């Protein structure tokens, strides 16, 4: 029951739509295009049809005057144990550009307890205004009090664009806030820009395990909300002399009204934050066992990087799941990714394919990982990796 309508009288059977469909939902039968249930109503075929034989149902038109009341770009500043997360500053950097293009102000929303320094940092990183909500109920992130506070702020001050980090907390929070506000939310954006003609936020994101990219808009609802991937946008330079306004806001809920309690936080020894890591050294099946991660750990330490792994090594029980990079693990975007003994299955590539520089070390010269790598070494990782550690120790401490 696809939504796409095909006017069989107009269709010339040229097949342009068949090639354009990213989902393989169209084919030619007796020289006329037909569509099946794979159709997601994405509209990719509409533009390529030379005779305008294809159409999708009309969407309700925007209440333009209502939308104009929404102005400015907002960023949620995520904090953990009193420290702001880097992704928040990256978003303020990009948010600044979007706000300038829209000739609007940039606002940071800082929620927490006894962390007013974060509000000041937000101004240094580009915010014109900070909503600072300080309360014991907000000391540790919880969905309900955070979402309620943000929903109320949005309803009162009406931002046009609202960005949150695509971290575990950011995705948890954004999904709740957008649902309550009844507005569009685009996950995991790797591109954000303004359509200068319509003034809309164009949100680009990977889908299908990174096999396709989609650009998404939210024309009729406000704010236009996105979660933004780590390390996609550049970290702006902090200017501590920058001036801005800090507005203290009262929280909306008391502790008794909140349904969840955070009772503990467990960090493993050597726990790594893969999402923020600039350098990741990963091991796969080729490391052969838990002790095989030792040289990888040593190289990571020498470079100040984090240890990642392929699914194979996690499934074998050699390293905890928290280290897994790939489709069913974490998506990472480091400056340097060194894959040791990882063959490079599609699922793994989906998680690290956008790293700036990829190095592959593998015994098998035919391993697919060499297809995405910038540098490749065919050889025994147990010889190469310790030698690399040694070389970096020498060269970096000269």
């Amino acid at each position, binding site marked *: 029951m696809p939504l796409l309508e095909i006017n069989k009288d107009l269709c010339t059977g040229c097949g342009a739509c068949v090639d354009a469909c990213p989902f393989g939902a169209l084919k030619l039968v007796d020289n006329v295009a037909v569509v099946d249930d794979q159709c997601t109503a994405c509209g990719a075929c509409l533009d390529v049809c030379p005779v305008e034989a294809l159409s999708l149902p009309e969407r309700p038109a925007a209440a333009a005057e209502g939308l104009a009341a929404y102005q400015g770009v907002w960023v949620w500043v995520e904090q953990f144990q009193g420290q702001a997360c880097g992704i928040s500053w990256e978003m303020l950097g990009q948010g600044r550009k979007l706000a300038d293009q829209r000739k609007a102000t940039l606002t940071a929303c800082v929620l927490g307890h006894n962390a007013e320094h974060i509000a000041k940092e937000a101004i240094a990183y580009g915010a014109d205004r900070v909503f600072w909500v300080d309360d014991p109920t907000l000391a540790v992130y919880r969905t309900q009090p955070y979402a309620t506070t943000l929903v109320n702020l949005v309803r009162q001050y009406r931002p046009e664009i609202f960005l949150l980090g695509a971290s575990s907390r950011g995705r948890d929070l954004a999904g709740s806030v957008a*649902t309550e506000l009844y507005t569009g939310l685009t996950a995991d954006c790797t591109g954000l820009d303004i359509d200068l003609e319509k003034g809309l936020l164009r949100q680009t994101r990977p889908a299908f395990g990174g096999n396709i990219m989609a*650009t998404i808009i939210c024309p009729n609802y406000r704010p236009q909300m996105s979660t933004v991937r780590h390390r996609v946008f550049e970290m702006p330079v902090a200017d501590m002399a920058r001036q801005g306004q800090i507005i203290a806001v009262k929280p909306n809920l008391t502790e008794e009204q909140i349904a969840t309690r955070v009772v503990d936080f467990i960090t493993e020894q050597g726990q790594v934050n893969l999402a923020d890591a*600039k350098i990741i050294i990963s091991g796969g099946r080729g490391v052969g066992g838990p002790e095989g991660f030792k040289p990888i750990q040593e190289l990571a330490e020498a470079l100040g990087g984090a240890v990642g792994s392929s699914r194979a090594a996690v499934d074998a029980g050699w390293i905890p799941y928290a280290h897994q990079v790939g489709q069913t693990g974490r998506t990472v975007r480091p400056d340097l990714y060194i894959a040791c003994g990882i063959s490079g299955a599609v699922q793994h590539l989906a998680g690290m394919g956008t790293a700036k520089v990829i190095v592959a070390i593998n015994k098998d010269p035919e391993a697919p990982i060499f297809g995405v790598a910038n540098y490749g*070494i065919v050889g025994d990782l147990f010889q190469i990796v310790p030698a690399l550690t*040694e070389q970096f120790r020498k060269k*970096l401490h000269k």
Partner: protein
Amino acid sequence: MNIIVCIKQVPDTTEVKINPETGTLIREGVPSIVNPFDTYAIEEGLRLKEKFGGKVTVISMGPPQANEALKEAVAMGADEAILLSDRAFAGSDTWATAYTLSQAIRKLGAFDLILCGKQAIDGDTGQVGPGIARQLDIPQLTYVFKIQKLDPETRSVSVERLLEEGREVVETHLPALLTVVKDINQPRYPTFLGIRRATKMQIPVWGAADLDNTDAEKLGLKGSPTQVVKVFSPPKREGKVEMIQGESPEETASMLADKLMAEKVI
């Protein structure tokens, strides 16, 4: 324990190939599977049922063939299944999907727990779980790595959530919605009896008209705030791999180290 598991049928994205000439996805012959993260949700639901009694109901929204995914869940041991399928649901984004699923859950009546996978491997948004929780006004615990304790008497649950910096232990009351990550369990295989039951089962199909007090304006394409305007192939990684081969591992390592330092990534 009355447990509801929301699942999605997805194309096995790992089997998707790109047509090198047109740069588009070749979907032909790509098998449909139960979203891998949802299989962990099904398994967790079945384990809780085995421990506390009750039933597991799986629901899915999708085209008619999505009933195959529901049958797979039944073959694993789910008691009941509902398919939400209607032309009125087509073109739903995450907002409209969460709304439709939550309307169906309301119709199912009282429940203790809703389980979802942390995200689907085709859309990768992770937004539908939180959306359902908000629609139903119940607590959400996302990225659950382990259920530490669940007490149907005191109606409380405590879980470990897998976050970037470590694992957070959180407790809340029932009913609640949990989204689960891969490490929570090892999903079982369907049993012979389960497959037989699933083959025979007539899975009820609910359309828009079957959902009570539902605003038709909030369904499908019409109810979806987001709109896809362009779909394209991701930019290819530029250049070819440069193979490095010295006379000895030391020399190879030294050559690579120099290259990486020149790239300024270290």
